[in-house]
């Protein structure tokens, strides 16, 4: 029986993590938790990049991860600032309370 963990398994794990992140974003109602779910999705993509890069023996995958991390950091800065701005005005981070704009 072959018990080696091939890159294919990592890609399968990444797809599971991505789905968990997506489900978290769609089901949870707290803006911070939703934001954490997005980060989980980005990290699942990073795992895919690294696994694919390893399988294909090219460096592009590993290099991409650095760019993704930098972009994710920039997104955190802006995202947390927006969440804090909303929280200071309403004392809640639940997206259910954000229902002034609808129709």
């Amino acid at each position, binding site marked *: 029986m072959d018990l080696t963990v091939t890159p294919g398994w990592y890609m399968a794990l990444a797809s599971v993590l991505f789905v968990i992140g997506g489900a978290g974003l769609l089901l949870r109602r707290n803006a911070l938790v939703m*934001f954490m779910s997005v980060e989980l999705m980005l990290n699942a993509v990073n795992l*895919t990049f690294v696994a694919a890069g390893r399988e294909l023996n090219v460096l592009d995958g590993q290099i991409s991860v650095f760019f993704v991390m930098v972009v994710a950091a*920039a*997104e955190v800065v802006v*995202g947390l600032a927006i969440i804090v*701005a909303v929280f200071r005005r309403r004392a809640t981070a639940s997206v259910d309370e954000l229902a*002034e*704009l609808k*129709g």
Partner: protein
Amino acid sequence: MSNIDFLALGPEIAVTAAAVLLLMIEVARKPSARVWGWIAGIGIAAALGLSIAGWVLGRGTDANLYFSDMLALDGFSAFGGIVVFTLTGIGLIAGWGLVTSLRRRGAEFVALVLIAAAGMHLMAASANLIMLFIALEVASISFYVLAGITRNRAADEAALKYFLLGAFASAVFLYGIALVFAATGTLSMAGQESFLGETILLRPGVLLAGIALLIVGLGFKVSAAPFHVWAPDVYQGAPSGVTGFLAAGAKVGGFAALARVLTVPLDAYLDDWAPAVAVVAVASVVVGTLLAIAQDDIKRMLAYSSVAHAGFILLALTAGDAGVEAVWFYVSTYALQVVGAFAVVAAVSGPDTGASPLDSYAGLGKRSPMMAAGLGLMMIAMGGIPMTTGFVGKLGVFRAAIDAGYLWAVVTALVATVAGLFFYLRVIVRMYMDAPGGDAPALEVGRGPAWAVGITSAATIVLGIAPWPLLNMLRDALPF
């Protein structure tokens, strides 16, 4: 052979340098808003000039990839630059009232607009998927901040909704990139094109999943149904002075990226993705038109109408390469219509407020004949009446989709076009037939919105009556 050419990156350098200079001068000298305007204006004019230079030198040549295949300098990217920077200039002029109302924070606003413009042009110029992702994020992150710049309740809510759904869309798009990379072994679009053109994948599942995720991710950004849920709230909550720029910019950048990704690297899989694009297109046209009818806020109505317009533009993409000209004509002229329409909204309800109920347009024909005429023209153009760019654009996308064999989609879109006239003409009826509520005085219109409405109206009529110069130009605006 050196493949470094700073002309390919020139427009980005110009606007980014202007943004950095603006922020540094703001910290050091606290200049008046007029100085911000000059710096931004010079930066945008330089970027526009460099894009035109890129157009003259880059169109119609082959193998024009620079910085290790990261950037393309071709007719596609140069035309994208011309559209993006024209739009940015008009958008800033239309929203200048918002800049002055933000007082010292106005400098940040102007700098963010410039950086978003750099990102939007990079979306048209990227020749590598990771480069495209970074470009998309540069534009999107700037947009999130711009949507919430006034920090009132509506703007906060718009910014948070835009951010959460935008970040979700970016993650989906990125996963699509990762899967396409896993299937092809390269991130370079040229490399993927030659790999997929020469190789028959025995198990294309990973690639097809990647293509689907790319379409979903960019579908969010251009607000195509069923990925449009953020658009109405963001349009309504964002300050009116910047909504036009956000709306037009997201469309231009998103469709430039979508057109290049689908027709260059994934051209060999046209038969697989075109039906999916056709379904999304029809869904957008139907959903956008039906929901726009029910709105009583003009910004929400324009948001749903933009969902329908995203569907019309997607129709042209079902033709692959052959539809790119129609995409460019539609998206560039529609962007001008949107900026013009939101300039009127900013003049009527104030550039720093979010909501703009349809009732406040009653009797606008008497309160401000020029603004009413401008908005009326934009409504007619969006409805697709002849003698405006809207008609020529719709003709182009319908012809491209019929040639590609999607007659059913075109018939549905035609029915939706007729239904759409209802809510476009309703605005005109409101403005000219209804009496203004109470004793509404004549509307004071600033010079900014007046200029923006004037320029966009002139372009909409001139290119609607004589579209041939632009149509001829677009023959050279194809991706490499």
